[in-house]
């Protein structure tokens, strides 16, 4: 794909990735955050964290479907960093609006409430990934080690989905869609590599 299309698509992706935040800012300015603004902010930042994380995880398997899709790699880091960005907003929403910056409340939440434990763990997984997202880091770590480290993205996504399930009421199925997408992505890797191996044997 020509460079200028990539550039154009990057601009579009940036706008898309920023739009959930823009919606929140717009709602805050126009006083339309809804009846329960705290819940709205919490859900929006949390949901988009998972969404962008899962989208970033989809890049590699989708690329492997056809050599003509290899250009997608230009978007993986962008999506991953936006996942971290929304995850961080989500984290600070909890710190400010739920615990009131109270360290004791934070620790007891993390220790006592398993959904917060899982969410905290997911966000902590993303921190080293964001920190080593530069090209310099890849070179410094070496491709092999960098790739191994960045498998943590899967761990973060699983923990994130568990966090989602653990905080909805029992019987509520709203996290199901993201869970299915993540499950498909997790299965895609071994299945695709198996198919490739079989193809190799035939040839």
């Amino acid at each position, binding site marked *: 794909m020509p460079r200028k299309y990539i550039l154009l698509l990057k601009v579009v992706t940036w706008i*898309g990735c920023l739009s959930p935040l823009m919606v929140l800012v717009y*709602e805050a300015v126009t006083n339309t955050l809804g009846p329960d603004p*705290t819940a709205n902010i919490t859900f*929006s930042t949390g949901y988009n964290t998972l969404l962008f994380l899962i989208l970033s995880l989809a890049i590699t398997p989708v690329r492997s479907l056809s050599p003509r899709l290899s250009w997608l790699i230009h978007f993986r880091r962008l999506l991953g960093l936006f996942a971290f960005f929304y995850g961080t907003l989500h984290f600070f929403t909890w710190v400010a609006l739920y615990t*009131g910056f109270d360290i004791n409340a934070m620790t007891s939440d993390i220790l*006592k*409430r398993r959904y917060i434990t899982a969410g905290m763990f997911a966000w902590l997984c993303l921190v080293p990934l964001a920190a080593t997202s530069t090209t310099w880091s890849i070179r410094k770590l070496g491709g092999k080690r960098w790739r191994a480290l960045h498998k943590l993205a899967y761990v973060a996504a699983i923990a994130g989905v568990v966090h989602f399930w653990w905080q909805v009421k*029992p019987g509520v*199925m*709203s996290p199901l869609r993201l869970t299915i997408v993540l499950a498909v992505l997790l299965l895609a890797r071994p299945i695709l590599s198996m198919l490739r191996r079989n193809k190799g044997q035939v040839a």
Partner: protein
Amino acid sequence: MLIRKPNAIPSSEITPRVAYERFMARRKFLRTAMGAAAVAGASAFGADRIADILAPRTHAHADTKLKTVPSPLTTTGEQLTSLEDVTHYNNFYEFGIDKSDPAKNAGGLPTRPWSVKVSGKVKSEKTFDIDSLLKLRPLEDRVYRHRCVEAWSMVIPWVGYSLSELIKQCDPLPSAKYVQFVSYYDRHVEKWSGQDATIFWPYSEGLRMDEAMHPLTLLAFGLYGEVLPNQNGAPVRIVVPWKYGYKSAKSIVEIRFVEKQPPTTWNDQAPSAYGFYSNVNPDVDTVPWSQKSERRVGLPFWQQRRTTLMFNGYGDQVASLYKGMDLRKYY
């Protein structure tokens, strides 16, 4: 404060029901089509929510003023939650799990004719028509705090009278120790359920007899001086202000007097999280949430957080009901 006066609208101005329903059906189709396009195009980027912002609010109810009298049991000193928020932020899972769903989906709830069956341990079973219930006692204006287990709260001006007034008319036998409330359920009307939640319908709730007889326990027919909007549990519901919101069953079709603690929907769903009593209690967490504090609906996000009060602030009136009980065990 917004109180509409429907009497001021000449009948010629009122959209005929058929036209209204057609309009709603078309709207629904357009919304669905638009929604599908938005999802296909860019749901990842919040287009759904932009569409939500742009779409005008719908009121799935007809407004009708009720004649009311003041009540000494009203809660004072609280700022009321707006009618808009009270009627557009609802947990009524039969009509969808998103809190904006009931306002959109409850339009088809057939609130007339309506009757409430009284059964179980009573001298003789009987059925009350909604009109006779409305006339049984003077309707009182009662402001109550409303605390959801999801840790948000409202202040709602209900209209109704103490449930005890109805119970007296039912002649319960001495063996009646509990009262069970069964909500309306018709899978053809409430077709949105089951998509996003696995819950056994109809919704069932219950109270101990002394709780049901407590003057604060309200049989509610309206809010903000008007008949209950469908999404708030029309045409008749229970309101128990010192318990989490799910104890206050909506759209009641049957009241059963029973000997043993009746099955209740959320307790069946998750016994460890939702107890039978479900009194608002800041010292007992309700998995997964902390109940120490709550978010008041309708305030800016930096002003929402407030401390949760024992029995939702109604301890003076109701604490004696639980004397000698370990409220950590009987949560």
